[in-house]
Every structure is written in C-alpha cells, then in structure tokens.
C-alpha cells in the first residue's frame, strides 16, 4: 500500500492543465509537418504553416494555443495499492483544474447550469474518468476539449446489420456535416461497441492515443486507414477551405456489446490535439 496526498494530485493536475494548453504534443506536430509535405493546396499549406507558427508562439510565451482552453477532461489510472490521503479524488482533481486554469491565464469556459448559464469562473467541474489498475502509481492525463469539437461530435445506435459499411458512412456523414466547425485538420476518434453510455467514452479514449500509433487490435489498423483515406478524399481541407488534409488521423477503440446493438460514436477533435500526461 502506498499513500499519496491529495494535494499531490491537485498540484499535478494544475501543471498538466497548463502544459496541455501551452504545448502541442510532438506526435501532433510531426503529423502536421507530414501533412504539409503532402498538401497541394496553397491556402491549405498557408493554414498549416499558421498552425505550426502558433504552436511555437504559444510554447515560447507560455500562453494558450487556443482561446478555447476547453472543458478539462481528466483521465486517472489509479493503482489499486494506492491509498489517497486528504480530499476525495474528485475534489483533488477539481482543485487542480481551478488552480491550473486561474493561475495559468486559461479561459474558464464552464457554466454551472446548462440553462441558467452562469460561468463557474474556475473551469470546474472537471470531467473525471477513473480506471483502477494494478500497481501503486497514479497516471493522470488531461485533455482540454474545446466546445466547437464537442458540438461536432455524434452518437448513433445502429442495428448489427449496419456493420462496417454503416459505420463508415456515419463517420463520413459526421465529418461532412460538422467537420468544418471542429477546426480541421481533425483527429477523429471513433468508438464502436459497448453501450449507449460507454461508447462516447470509447471514442474519447481513441483521442488519447498518439497520432499515427497503431490500434491494440490489428484488424482495426486497416479500418482506420480506410476511414482516414475516405475522410481526406472529402476535400474539406484545413478550416474547410479545401485541400487533402481534412484529418491527420482516425483512431478507433472498440468494446464488446449486446447482440442487438452496434453503438457508434464519433468524437471529433481539432488540429490543436492537446493532452498532457503525468505520473505520481
């Protein structure tokens, strides 16, 4: 059994909120460079250059890559041999988000009630996902998720007969209809299976993978490639102004599901694919 003070979690979450918002991960920067080399449209190339320049300025000045510093999605893998001392995990994480956002000059974008819409002024509450895993460590990932990309996401319950062709068409339809507003070039997270409540989370988990990394199940690598090619053939391009770079990656996560169901979710992400991970 290892004891970890809740204050340690608060400190780590605050640091990760800032790092995620100031610095674009290496894998995303490499994917942008690769896309620039393949892109033929001058306007698209200009936008890809702006995106790379922006990442440089944000990191140099320690300022946010995007003014929408997102809803703070926090993923915690908690070792089952960890004993937490002090506040609850949820409270420690929320305090970390509040500290990270208010001290880091990050925009607070959360309203307390979806209809009254009064800003909480510290970007809490966080969206916390916890997995209990073997060991005595805590792995924490912060993914600041922008509102534009959330609004461009979608979930549909298919009958099993729809199969892969139905999924493919749904992803393309979602990108075609909503992709522009999610700031392409996109990272498209696709969740397949699970249940109505878990498939959205699966799609989000797909966004946590490094851009260009292979899926755990080999059979899905070819499906991701097929989807990426089909999405890029749409010609939407960076910011919807045309080009071959509509998405940098399509990632799929899948899970067992009911014999009657084929849940599918599309979690859209913008080119500012911000995430930061730390370990306690």
């Amino acid at each position, binding site marked *: 059994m290892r004891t970890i003070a809740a204050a340690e979690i608060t400190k780590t979450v605050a640091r990760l909120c800032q790092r995620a918002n100031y610095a674009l991960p290496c894998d995303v920067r490499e994917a942008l460079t690769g896309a620039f080399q393949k892109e033929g449209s001058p306007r698209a190339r200009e936008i890809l250059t702006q*995106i790379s320049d*922006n990442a440089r300025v944000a990191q140099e000045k320690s300022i946010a890559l*995007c003014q*929408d510093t997102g809803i703070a999605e926090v993923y915690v893998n908690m070792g089952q041999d960890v004993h937490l001392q002090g506040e609850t995990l949820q409270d420690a994480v929320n305090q970390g988000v509040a500290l990270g956002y208010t001290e880091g*000059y990050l925009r*607070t974008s959360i309203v307390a009630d979806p209809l009254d819409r009064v*800003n909480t*002024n510290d970007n809490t509450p966080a969206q916390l996902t916890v997995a209990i895993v073997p060991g005595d460590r805590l792995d924490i990932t912060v993914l600041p998720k922008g509102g534009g990309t959330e609004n461009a996401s979608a979930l549909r319950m298919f009958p099993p007969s729809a199969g892969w062709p139905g999924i493919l068409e749904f992803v393309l339809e979602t990108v075609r209809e909503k992709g522009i507003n999610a700031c392409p070039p996109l990272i498209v997270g696709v969740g397949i299976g699970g249940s109505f409540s878990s498939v959205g989370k699966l799609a989000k988990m797909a966004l946590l993978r490094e851009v260009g990394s292979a899926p755990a199940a080999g059979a899905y690598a070819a499906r991701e490639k097929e989807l990426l090619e089909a999405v890029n053939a749409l010609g939407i391009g960076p910011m919807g102004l045309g080009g071959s770079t509509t998405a940098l990656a399509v990632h799929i996560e899948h899970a067992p599901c009911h014999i009657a169901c084929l849940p599918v979710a599309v979690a859209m992400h913008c080119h*500012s694919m911000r995430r930061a991970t730390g370990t306690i």
Partner: protein
Amino acid sequence: MARSLTIADFIEQIPALRAGEDLLLSGTLFTARDAAHKRLAQLISDKQPLPIELANAVIYYCGPAPARPGDAVGPCGPTTSARMDPYTPLLLSLGVRATIGKGKRSTPVTDACRAHQAVYCVTTGGVAALLSQKVRRSEIIAFADLGPEAIWRFDVVDFPVTVALDSNGNDIFRPSTKR
C-alpha cells in the same frame, strides 16, 4: 497576396470585396459571442440603449483567454460563427457591416449580407496565440459579468482574414452556388 486595409477603407470597399480575397485589417473590432449576442438582442427588443455603436461596426466572434501581465490581449482566435446565425440578420439590419469568425453561415445570413451590403470573413481557428500578436490594445466595453463572453474592443494591426461571404451572395464554402 493579402491586401492591407484600414477598417474604414474595408467598410467603404465592401460592395467590391469578393469571397476568397485575403485581407489584413487594421483598426477596431468588437468581440461578441453567444451570451453577448443574446443580451444585445434582448436590449434591442426592449428598445434599451446599446453598449456599442452598431453602425459600421465589425464584430469578431471571439471569447479571449485572459492576458498575461504586460500582454495587450490573451489568446484570441475565432469561435464557430454558425451559433450566432440567429442574431446576425438583426445586427446587420442595424448597421453592423462585417462579422469575423470561422465556418459556414446560414442562408438567412447570406441573404442579410446581400440586403444590407455586409460581408462575413473567416480567420484561422485554433491559432489564438498567433492572432493575439495582431492585437495592440484591448479593453472590456460591456457585459463584464459574462467573463470570457464580455464585449471587448480590440485595436488590431494586420489582422488576417479571408472574405467568406460577400455582399453579392458568393460563398467560399459553396463555390458552386454562385461566383
């Protein structure tokens, strides 16, 4: 090659601007996003005085992040314009001449741009740090209680935009419809 224009010249040249033109704007922009639009519409409906002069105004759909001490403004990229579509024809009818944001607009907005000789421009989403370098001065003008959704005045220099919807109904996102 992008053309540099002061806001005054930009407004004067609106009838001649065409979708697809790249411009670098210098002058004053007013920010407004969802909550500020809702308040403006309510004030208009209640026949109350407005906190900004709408005649010849250029509205930038943006809710900036806080500025670090010493910086003129915080990161300040565009937000999705379509969410403001329900309010835009009203504001254009009251003299707003241009809006700046990202993404497509609705048919009523296209029609209102034609009817009121207005344009809609886009700027790149997600490059807020870069765009903040184009703002020389910023201050909150109204609705400070809305936090990031307050109305700000931005004094910009060479702020990059592309005309997306011109006053003739040409739309960069629907190149086949007119042009």
